[in-house]
């Protein structure tokens, strides 16, 4: 450090330094001023928009004024702030300034300076989860600050094995990305895959964790989410303990979880808070609802366009008379109605909450009734489409709901082309696609194929905790045992 004081800085370094300051000065929120104190004058520079003025005025300026500080080291010692560094590296200075540090130097032409961290942290308070709200269970949700989010997780997993690997990604955004895993549980291969993909990532701006999940997905052309994003710290803590890898991004209130299998898209975390019979029943309902939501309109189109024989004679009256006055073929009828529902959904999502709700109700009731009255759609189809839309909302993972919305249309087209056979062909494509998919290199369709009895205990149903003494097999954890299995007590006889 002394060296810097006595060493004459070379011209090049000085010019670099000056040009940096000049460059920053162009920005209106850059503050650069000279304090002409008799003892020791100094220069101070910072971006006013990201520096906490309170820290500046309370902690940094008073020590500088009160005592005569002659060296940078003395300043560092005098300041009651931890993150103080002395450097002459232009790159470091620039980064630090842009992250909310205050630069202090004695002379304008000096290259060495003190950088004091005084960033203004504007973060929301921890609030109630909105997307994954659950009646029972904890009510905390992630916020946009990585530090707060890590705090929420660490407080749930106070163990030293919880590792956080940090990366800075994005040539413009310089976003901090953290990879979380528990050493000794999580499979190294999974961690390595995630880390490698992050390291090789080359993108200019990471605004949200969804950027990361889109950029490191195994198959970028798939409409199926290959990671789950969650806003619940309890869910993250839960999956970390199972052996998953979690990626968190600064500035994003969602963590992404991988590897996942398709069944996890039907699992609400709430399932673990209610007893297993309820949870299993709800999960089955969800699986059924998704199948229904995808299939019902295509089947309607297929049957009404080609396979009238399939309709039982009593149902025939209802179906045919409801369609008697409708000028459109079933496919157009269905597409128009599906698009109307999508329209309502998009409109509702883009509008402020209260207006959105009204639009949803008004649109749903008015347009639906009017369409039937006008003879544009049959009331049977209206019920089916509304039910399908309702069913698609049962998926606990929001992105899966979007997938289902989209998935219906290829099925519809195939149903119009070849009826039920078309649906079967579309199903074969879907099946192959799902078989081909992987999430962080692990098979996506796991408990179904490759078939795995152990993982089926927590897939379509959730069996009681006592039966789940082992971690999911598809995560290939290093330590598969969750908890030791207790020996069953001897069954008491009736009269005991």
């Amino acid at each position, binding site marked *: 450090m002394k060296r810097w004081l006595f060493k004459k800085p070379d011209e090049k370094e000085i010019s670099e330094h000056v040009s940096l300051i000049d460059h920053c000065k162009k920005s209106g929120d850059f503050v650069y001023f000279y304090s002409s104190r008799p003892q020791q004058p100094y220069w101070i520079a910072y971006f006013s928009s990201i520096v906490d003025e309170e820290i500046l005025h309370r902690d940094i300026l008073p020590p500088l004024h009160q005592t005569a500080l002659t060296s940078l080291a003395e300043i560092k010692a005098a300041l009651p702030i931890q993150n103080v560094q002395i450097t002459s590296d232009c790159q470091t200075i620039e980064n630090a300034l842009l992250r909310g540090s205050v630069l202090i130097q004695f002379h304008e032409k000096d290259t060495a300076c003190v950088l004091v961290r005084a960033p203004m942290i504007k973060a929301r308070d921890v609030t109630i989860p909105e997307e994954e709200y659950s009646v029972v269970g904890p009510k905390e949700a992630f916020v946009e600050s990585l530090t707060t989010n890590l705090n929420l997780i660490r407080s749930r997993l106070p163990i030293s094995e919880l590792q956080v690997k940090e990366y800075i990604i994005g040539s413009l955004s310089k976003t901090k990305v953290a990879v979380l895993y528990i050493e000794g549980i999580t499979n190294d291969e999974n961690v390595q895959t995630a880390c490698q993909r992050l390291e090789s990532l080359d993108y200019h701006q990471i605004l949200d964790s969804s950027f990361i999940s889109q950029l490191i997905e195994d198959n970028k052309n798939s409409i199926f989410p290959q990671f789950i994003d969650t806003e619940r710290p309890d869910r993250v803590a839960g999956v970390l303990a199972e052996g998953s890898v979690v990626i968190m991004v600064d500035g994003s209130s969602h963590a992404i979880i991988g590897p996942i299998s398709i069944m996890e898209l039907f699992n609400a975390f709430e399932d673990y808070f209610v007893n297993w019979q309820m949870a299993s029943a709800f999960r089955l309902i969800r699986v059924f609802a998704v199948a229904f939501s995808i299939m019902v309109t295509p089947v309607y189109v297929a049957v009404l366009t080609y396979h009238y024989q399939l309709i039982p004679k009593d149902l025939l009256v209802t179906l045919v008379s409801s369609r008697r006055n*409708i000028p459109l073929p079933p496919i157009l009828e269905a597409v128009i109605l599906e698009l109307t529902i999508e329209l309502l959904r998009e409109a509702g999502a883009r509008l402020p909450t209260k207006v959105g709700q009204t639009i949803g109700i008004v649109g749903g009731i008015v347009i639906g009734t009017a369409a039937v009255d006008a003879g544009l759609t049959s009331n049977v189809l209206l019920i089916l489409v509304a039910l399908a839309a309702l069913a698609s909302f049962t998926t606990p993972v929001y992105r899966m709901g979007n997938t289902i919305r989209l998935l219906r249309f290829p099925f519809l087209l195939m149903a119009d082309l*070849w009826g039920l056979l078309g649906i079967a062909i579309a199903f074969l494509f879907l099946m192959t696609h799902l078989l081909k998919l992987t999430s962080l290199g692990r098979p996506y369709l796991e408990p179904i194929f490759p078939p795995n009895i152990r993982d089926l205990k927590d897939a379509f149903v959730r069996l009681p905790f006592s039966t789940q003494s082992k971690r999911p097999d598809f995560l290939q954890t290093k330590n598969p045992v969750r908890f030791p299995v207790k020996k069953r007590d001897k069954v008491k006889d009736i009269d005991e």
Partner: protein
Amino acid sequence: MKKLKIAMICFVIFSAIFFGRVTTQIVDDVNMASAVGYDYAGGDRVKLTTVVPVFKPDKSVGNKTYAASDELSKETLRKLNQSSSRKMVNGKLEVAVYSKELAERGIGDIVDTLERDPSISERLLVAIVDGDAEQLLKEKYGDRDTGVFLSMLIDQNIDSGLVPTYNFHNFLNNYYSKLSDPFLPLIQKNGKYVQIKGIALFKDGRYIQNLKQEHQFVFKALLEKLKLVTYKLKLDEDAFVAIEDINTRHKVRVKKIKGKPEVTVELTVKGIIRESKKIRTSEAAVERIRKGMEKQLEDQADEMIRTFQKAQIDPLGFGHEVRSRMRGFDYKKWLEQYPNLKIKVKTQVDILEKGVIE
């Protein structure tokens, strides 16, 4: 390479959509025939009548008939199409009726079209109409169209009446079998109503005679398990008893005596006395009713089987029973033996209850 792949996929989708199109049969753009009737139209020609339900937007159903005649049934369908505003399809056919006149000339060739068409249900009900099929189908009877009405009528009589369970599949099984002969329910239009008159018996695909009305009970009992039907027992000149909620079971035994098979059918009947006229239901009387019923059933069965043997028909499928119990069964020999075969029916009647009064 990738571009080529995308081009190939686009080509497949394109060709599937443009060359793979199939004709649609949109449910409200077709006329779904619900019943078809065949009449003899002289010479080689057959008159075909189809019933088409007209579904109205207020959920009521009307009835419309189309008729045409030709040698080929499918050709008639084309002729029907000429007068129909919507395409005629027969995937929802519920009932096919043949006039007695036509049935006497043989219905084998006409059945072919129904059998060959993959869109026709195996549960199709086939019946013979005593009279004109067109006249029968023209009338609207219930709140549904005639086709559905007739199928409901026959179905109801199969479930709780004396018509044996008999759909198109059973008919074809019997029709093609060398060992048994088909039969069909016989219906008749009676003014504003339709009623099941009895059972029409066939030989080689030709209608020959009716089953006597009083034999229907035994006939069905020997074919399948009867459930919840009523039987009228005549004890004396004017003493009658109604037995209800009858459950029956039958068992066929075949003995081979001197190379000739002998068939014994054991019929068990369980029932409840529901109504009695001019007879008390004391313990002794019940015993009398039991014995009387056994005798009456046996007499009816014997008489019925004798008529079958005389006419050389086997609607009850005794041939199958014998074949399944004999190795190296010879069809020709059996057909020779059949008219003189010993077929005995033994009945066992149990009266379970007699109501709430003596």
